[in-house]
């Protein structure tokens, strides 16, 4: 299954860049953040892999580990299986290479992550907030996010209105 994919990837990228975990329900491959774009290109276009479908990109904030983990869900029609890639960036100054050039679909997911988690994707064509207003302060999906009590001089909490 995914372990076969892992062996193909290891042949190309070497042991120390990739780690294979199967302690979760969907086994995943931990990737070095510097290599994520190359890996994605390889996975998409390698004739043995052909992970042509980009399912989703998710970011999980781990304050205690002081890192944000990116989770890529890829799907290969050829092998009819899903592959999960993970890569972690630091919480302080999260920066990661964009994979918009590999899958256009990732563009909006990355913008959403920039919006809600504050991960900055380099080489992205249009890195700005997607869902929230442009002048919003903070990144709501971070665990230590606190809602500002005022937005444009409007109170955001509901209980003080009455």
């Amino acid at each position, binding site marked *: 299954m995914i372990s076969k994919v892992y062996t193909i990837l290891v042949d190309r990228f070497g042991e120390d860049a990739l780690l294979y975990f199967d302690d979760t329900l969907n086994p995943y491959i931990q990737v070095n953040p510097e290599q994520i774009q190359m890996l994605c290109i390889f996975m998409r276009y390698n004739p043995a892999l052909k992970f042509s479908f980009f399912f*989703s990109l998710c970011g999980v904030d781990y304050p205690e580990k002081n890192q944000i983990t990116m*989770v890529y869900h890829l799907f290969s029609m050829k092998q009819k299986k899903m592959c999960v890639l993970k890569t972690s960036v630091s919480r302080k100054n999260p920066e990661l290479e964009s994979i918009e050039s590999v899958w256009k679909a990732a563009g909006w997911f990355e913008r959403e992550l920039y919006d809600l988690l504050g991960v900055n994707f380099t080489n992205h064509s249009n890195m700005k907030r997607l869902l929230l207003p442009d002048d919003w302060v903070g990144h709501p999906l971070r665990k230590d996010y606190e809602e500002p009590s005022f937005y444009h001089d409007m109170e955001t909490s509901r209980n003080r209105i009455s």
Partner: protein
Amino acid sequence: MPESELKYLKPQALAFKEEMILNMGPQHPSTHGVLNFLVVTDGEVIHQALPNVGYLHRGIEKLAEQTSYTGFIPFTDRIDYLAAMFANHVYVLAVESLAEIEVPERAQFLRVIACELNRIASHLISTGALALDIGASTPFVHWIRERECINDIMEAICGARLTYSYMRVGGVSRDISQKIVDDIYKFLDHFEPIIDEYNRLISFNEIFVRRLADVAIISPVDAVNFGLVGPNLRGSGITMDIRKIIPYSVYDQFDFDIPIGKGFKGSLGDCYDRYFVRILEIKESCSILRQALSQIPKGDIKAKVKRKLKIKENECYACVESARGEMGMYLVSDGSDRPYRLKIKTGSFTAMSIVEKVSQGLMVADLIALIGSLDVVAPEIDR
């Protein structure tokens, strides 16, 4: 338009003096919810259409982190109000696979029946609203009439007409009686000929065909690249259906086709293909419903689940084939009674991102057709 928005337009935009910027939405009759498009047009021809989403962002993913596993089910209804059952389904699938709960067979069949009914209802709205956008109001009203029958059945099944909250972790909320089964059969007998009538009314109407055929063509390569899912992807001729490829629930027991676009009236991947694939899917859903109703076994409808569900540290990605394509949820648990992180991936989100590419060179009326044929639902984009 505010000056601050102007800088996000691409440099080639506004190069011609004849161009103007049209703010389409958020209050526009055809944007299917609260959406905004910054449209750069030269007369009627669109040079660029930038979708501007986020008006319906309610932070459902953040809410999930503060709600218990079972308490989050009603929130999933609000992700996509036209096809609430699928969001229910994918969420309980994710929780069940994390908590390792075995769902009784009857409950799985009930889920499939509810989902397929909801798929029909959602496709009715989608195809009807497309006809409404093109200017024909009668097909929409006729479809609403049929959807009303489904809503009545849904009300009998789960007590709600729009936001169902039917699924429970480990099963469904209530059983269906023989009367409801008969009602569904009666509805199907009534409904299947109506599809043909609808086709006579609008699908093969010459004006309708000409408005949609060869308009806003999405090539298969683009469709995959932009991550289109569901009927939009199948309209581009790619046989991709989660029900067949990663079978969940009991879908592997049914025999059904995956309709794909073949360039029915124009070229492959145009608006008409996306539209007609939905019509064909309605027929397939009817056939699945008949099979599910005939095979439904006796038994429990809900597995034993602890009242306060706590799931040990784990994560999973569950996906279903929703009416708007693959809907996935990535659920991370941390041992507490709440999800640590929930990521909801929806079909409309990726469908919206392709508008910018496809809309170049279309006319204003075609943009409406494109949005209608992509079947975007605004709360699903913003969540």
